[in-house]
């Protein structure tokens, strides 16, 4: 059953009839933000700088894609922040500047991330702990593990061949990190929109019971979703450490809130049942453009926070209208 029809509104109606209605609203928000950026600081909106935003958002985008996958199933992964840190610390310490260790360590760290994700999944699916608590608990455990592993003092650094993927440019213009993101995004997009897994995942979020009664193995799919989120969070951590160059527990980026916000801005509701990789990446870019606008405004911190809130509210309010 539907809710009330909104009162008719010329422009909105036009929009709803036009082919534009198939474009995700977040894209409009993103375009609007870029226009604002260009007004506030034309330099920042130059193509090279815009492309660079993709690189800046790379680690968060990887994490956010994982978060989206879990959110589509109706869950939540609060452990991503710690997984990023653990991946960062472990990679730096184990690679310790040695080029030839990069590949095995990257694989190992990805595996550990996936295992943490699967553990979340086991708690949620088999032991029926609500995702919020299960992944929050995991967040504490993994952070504690990162502290214990590094003794609080992370060491080691990342050799140039891996740093390239966080900092470098291919053909001098395309950030390597953007290529990583693009590849991961393509795979994730394919997984979500072309495979039976994606279809089942969406169905679980839309109506678990119907999915179950349609023969979907709710447990297996949910487990996999959490596993992927863990995997992608550790991938985000790896991209971050390639960017940072050394092991660090001090990651300033709020990967947890950022990943959820990007997903929500990108059209994944808390209830689950829908969501797209493209939307989430647009959500991440939205945040990156927002930060650029704030930087260009050169406000003091208090003013920055106020402006940040108002811009977010205005942007999401505008496109919430288009969506209803």
């Amino acid at each position, binding site marked *: *059953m*539907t809710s*009330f*029809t909104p009162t008719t509104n010329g422009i909105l109606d036009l929009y*709803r*009839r036009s082919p534009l209605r198939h474009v995700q609203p977040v894209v409009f928000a993103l375009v609007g933000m870029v226009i604002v950026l260009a007004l506030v600081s034309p330099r920042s909106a130059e193509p090279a700088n815009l492309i660079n935003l993709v690189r800046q958002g790379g680690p968060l985008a990887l994490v956010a894609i994982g978060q989206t996958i879990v959110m589509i199933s109706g869950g939540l992964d609060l452990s991503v922040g710690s997984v990023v840190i653990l991946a960062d610390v472990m990679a730096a310490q184990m690679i310790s500047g040695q080029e030839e260790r990069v590949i095995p360590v990257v694989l190992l760290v990805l595996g550990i991330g996936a295992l943490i994700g699967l553990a979340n999944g086991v708690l949620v699916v088999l032991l029926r702990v609500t995702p919020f608590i299960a992944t929050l608990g995991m967040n504490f455990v993994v952070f504690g593990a990162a502290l214990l592993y590094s003794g609080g003092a992370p060491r080691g650094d990342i050799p140039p061949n891996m740093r390239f993927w966080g900092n470098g440019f291919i053909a001098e213009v395309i950030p390597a990190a953007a290529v990583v993101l693009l590849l991961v995004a393509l795979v994730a997009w394919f997984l979500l929109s*072309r*495979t*039976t*897994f994606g*279809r*089942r995942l*969406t*169905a679980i979020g*839309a*109506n678990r*019971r*119907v*999915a*179950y*009664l*349609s*023969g*979907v*193995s709710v447990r297996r799919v949910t487990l996999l979703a959490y596993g992927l989120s863990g995997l992608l969070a550790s991938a985000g951590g790896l991209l971050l450490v390639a960017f940072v160059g050394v092991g660090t527990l001090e990651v300033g980026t709020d990967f947890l809130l950022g990943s959820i916000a990007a997903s929500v801005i990108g059209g994944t509701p808390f209830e689950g*049942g*829908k969501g797209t990789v493209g939307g989430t990446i647009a959500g991440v870019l939205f945040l990156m453009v927002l930060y650029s606008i704030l930087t260009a405004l050169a406000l003091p911190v208090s003013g920055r926070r106020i402006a940040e809130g108002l811009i977010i509210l205005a942007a999401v309010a505008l496109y919430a209208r288009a969506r209803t």
Partner: protein
Amino acid sequence: MTSAPLLSIEHISKSFPGVRALADVSFEVRTGEVHALVGENGAGKSTLMKILAGVYHPDSGGIRWQGQPVALRSPAEAQRLGISIIYQEFNLLPDLTVAENVLLNREPRTRWGMIDWRALNERTRQLLGDLDTHIDPRAPLHDLSVAQQQIVEIVKALAFDARLLIMDEPTAALNPTEVGHLYTMIERLKQRGSSVIFISHRLDEVFHISDTITVLKDGQHVGSAPASSLTREEVVRRMVGRQLQDIFPARLPPGSGEPLMEVRGLQGPRLRDIDLRLHAGEILGLAGLEGHGQRELARTLFGIEPIQRGEVRIRGQAIHLRHPADAMTHGVAFLSDDRKVEGVALTLGVRENIGLPNLDRFSRMTVVQDTLERAACRQIVETLSVKTPGIEQPVRLLSGGNQQKTVLSKWLISEPRVLIFVEPTRGIDVGAKVEIYRLIHQLASQGAGVLMVSSDLLELLGLSSRVLVLRDGAITAELPGATASEESIMLAATGVHTG
């Protein structure tokens, strides 16, 4: 009858993106009459009713209430006028109690502004008692069966002193006894001078209760006439636009030989020692009073409810049923009676819903083959004439009957060997029913076995090769379909002769 119109619907039109739901509809409902509204699935009945309830706003046209034009901007405004509605889809709150649901927003209060629980429960008990049901007002709603929820919906609407009571398919989930009580209530309302708009796809009910019948077709008003001046055939012809021949296809004979599915000594939480054999090519009806184990049996055979003892064999092979997927690998399909909760994922599209149980067939190495899926969906949507602007339309935007057709579609194309159908034609119009019966029949004659639970005894009697009757979780009788009758089924179901 000369009484003045209570309600005049004047030139109402309403469109949704891609769908013209109502086109210039006008008719009147007089004071104290029961006015039936009939039409195919998607004809616009519910849309019109939602306009009367203040949920939707017409694109054009208007409404007069006792001669005065009124604008119904919200459900609250409609309620204030005295319009009360039983929606086709339940609108109940699973986490609240029955009484809280019934008197939502109208809770009796104590002097201190607190809820007067005693009065709340007492009032609800009375209202329930009027329908001769014994649901505990304090029971949480999520504990109730679909039929019980339907009763709660009815009682909720009756709790208003409504001048106009709209009932959008109130009987779809009810058994004959309950329907009888509902008739009594409607009579009482009439006596009080209230009017009733009654929507149903069961024409016998329509003729039994209504004074006037209005037919809608494709959003247009076909006509309104006193019920006494119409015949069944005429109404059907106006609804469907053609003459319907036989509703039921030729009855399939009881099967023999090696059974397709065999159940031995099955014991479950609500089932006692069930033995049954389902043969290829037959339709096996399961009958009994609500709550006596038919639903449970059907669900158990699909792996939803636990099996405590006994065994299930398909084609002679004993199978483990722990999950619906186990049943599905053996070619079992299951259609639940709770469409909204267990049938469709409302936010997903028609294609996504139909595809869900069939993904393995539509995919190669887990990659879904769009063209395969689309083609299959389009075909079944056409066969069942699901009224939708496209196969990507979110199911929640379909009419109730078309949602049901979507659920049927997803199972019918799964090439099932055993179909377990619980209330398969709930809310489906006469025309489409015929088509569905034909399809079920066709599947059975091609070698599938069908197990059907239906509270619509006509349907059960019309289709079944054999009828098994359950009482208290045990099978008490097996009746040949050709000779079974309502009386013989009731006798087996209750153990006593009914008058």
